[in-house]
């Protein structure tokens, strides 16, 4: 970063050369570039939305049509000619998707709330208080972010079942509410708030609690929203751990409920698989559409400092 800055200022000091040629070329180049832009954009829309459209269309098709419509490729592939709601009604009655949706919602909301509740004070301590080994402590916390959950499933299940949390909704989210990711995100945001602010509050005799809730938190709302949204996303989309930790149908979560149900000799009902996929995706999609600026802003906050 420093080198680049030096180069730029160095160059800037020399007399500027005229950019006439650049201007002359501009008009035709701009038209070409604009066409290029729209072509690329159209390709992006197709590439990123076609699979979703196909799933959506298929979820309204009867078993006989889903795969018959794929080849040869035609409009029929993406638009149901004889739409039916039967896949959705079946998903709710047979696969207990309704119950699973409620369970997932409970788990995700609790996980988000507890994650934030734990991460805010921890981030406060790591950025606003000074004690030895602060950096080391942060490192110790962050290293857990690198551990693939699938690799520690066995010991984790031992621990959770020894705590009598297996087959409970608590067992699904308790292991993950101390989230190094949320802490990382919040720590970045907390560091951006000038220390002068809390020093001023300290002079006024404010307690740490007050500084945290009145000074810091109001200033990091976007980061909090991001942490909450990302946690919701992780929680909602988790698959292997809920599968392992939950046994009874009453406690099942939505990703597990919709996962392809393969039984020897039994044919999966693909229409139901796709309607399930739509049902499981819709909540996060809606959340994303309405709150996407927080996603972006949170990534900005965590991103620029690497």
């Amino acid at each position, binding site marked *: 970063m420093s080198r680049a800055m030096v180069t730029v200022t160095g160059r800037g000091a020399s007399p500027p050369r005229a950019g006439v040629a650049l201007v002359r070329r501009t008009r035709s180049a701009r038209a070409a570039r604009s066409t290029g832009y729209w072509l690329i954009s159209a390709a992006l829309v197709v590439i990123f939305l076609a*699979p979703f459209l196909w799933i959506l269309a298929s979820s309204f098709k009867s078993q006989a049509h889903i795969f018959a419509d794929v080849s040869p490729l035609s409009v029929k592939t993406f638009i149901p000619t004889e739409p039916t709601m039967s896949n959705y009604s079946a998903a709710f009655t047979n696969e207990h998707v309704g119950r699973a949706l409620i369970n997932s919602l409970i788990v995700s909301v609790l996980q988000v709330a507890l994650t934030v509740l734990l991460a805010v004070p921890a981030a406060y301590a790591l950025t606003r208080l000074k004690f030895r080994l602060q950096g080391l402590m942060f490192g110790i916390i962050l290293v857990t972010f690198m551990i693939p959950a699938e690799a520690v499933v066995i010991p984790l299940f031992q621990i959770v079942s020894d705590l009598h949390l297996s087959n409970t909704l608590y067992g699904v989210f308790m292991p993950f509410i101390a989230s190094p990711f949320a802490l990382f995100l919040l720590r970045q945001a907390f560091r951006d708030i000038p220390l002068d602010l809390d020093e001023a509050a300290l002079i006024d005799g404010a307690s740490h609690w007050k500084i945290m809730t009145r000074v810091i938190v109001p200033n990091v709302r976007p980061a909090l929203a991001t942490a909450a949204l990302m946690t919701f996303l992780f929680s909602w989309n988790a698959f292997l751990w809920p599968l392992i930790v939950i046994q009874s149908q009453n406690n099942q979560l939505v990703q597990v409920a919709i996962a392809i149900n393969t039984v020897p000799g039994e044919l999966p009902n693909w229409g139901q698989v796709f309607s399930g996929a739509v049902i499981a995706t819709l909540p996060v999609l809606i959340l*994303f559409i309405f709150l996407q600026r927080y996603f972006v802003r949170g990534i900005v906050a965590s991103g*620029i400092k690497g």
Partner: protein
Amino acid sequence: MAEASSADIGQAAGRRGLPGRPGRLLSGRRRDTAVTAVVCLVPFLVLLAIFQYFAIGLMIRNSLYSYSLLNSNFSKFVGFANYTEIFHDHLALQSIGVTLLFALGVVVTQVPLGLGLALLLNMRRRGAPLLRSIVFVPVVTSVVVVTTMWTFIYAPSSGLANSTLHALHLPELKFLTTPHQALPALVIMTLWEEVGFSMMLFLAGLQSIPTEFEEAAAVDGAGPWSRFWKIVLPLLNRTTVLVVVVSTIFALQAFTQSYIMTQGGPDGSTNFMVYNIYTDAFNLGNPGYASALSVVLLIIIIIVSAIQMRALRGRR
């Protein structure tokens, strides 16, 4: 971008006080600070200790044993035998190679394409915000849904991909059913799934570059190409490090692709380490050995990200 500049100011202002002894104002409150630190950190650390460190500890302990998931009577201490066995295990060695290759594939495609998309959609053109959202949609979709979707896209005879190739009069491909195409096919799927995330990181990075730099260079006569290489890219260095490290870690942890789409095949060409660990533990009855592989994976992740951080930070 406002956030970025305030961040730098904040960092500069905050950091100056940090490394030394407690600031003059805080010194009188040392005890208060200690109590607060404990109250703030202990709940977090306790939970982390129970569910993460203890779990890792158990995993390390397990890696020194040969034992059975079904019955604890079979437990036997074997020292480092599980670790030495890895060197004789063709499948495990292959899975390490495949995983590293996959990570490489993901990084070399995702970083330039993520950056390209960010440059394209950073412009104030019509539709750019909408396009950004569209590219980001797969990121918020669950892996289960994405992999199920792509299983059908890649189906050789009736899949969407081959139907499209057919409609374009191109030869059909075998995708997941042949060793040479399976891994690239998964790289492409992962690219589709995650490129939105890299793009967002790059967008954030781009927006934090003060426009004066580029303007100055443009006035200076530098073309867009040289402006990109000489100014934008060096200034994006930290973002690039982040994208490379994060996408590598994600790739090294790949699991669901193998689990739902390929079961590690064909010929072990998509047998990712985590999936190999999973099958060793649950299907082949070797949880001790699987734990040793998990420890190896963790060490690989730490080493690879350390190397990347060093190499990319040192690159000037």
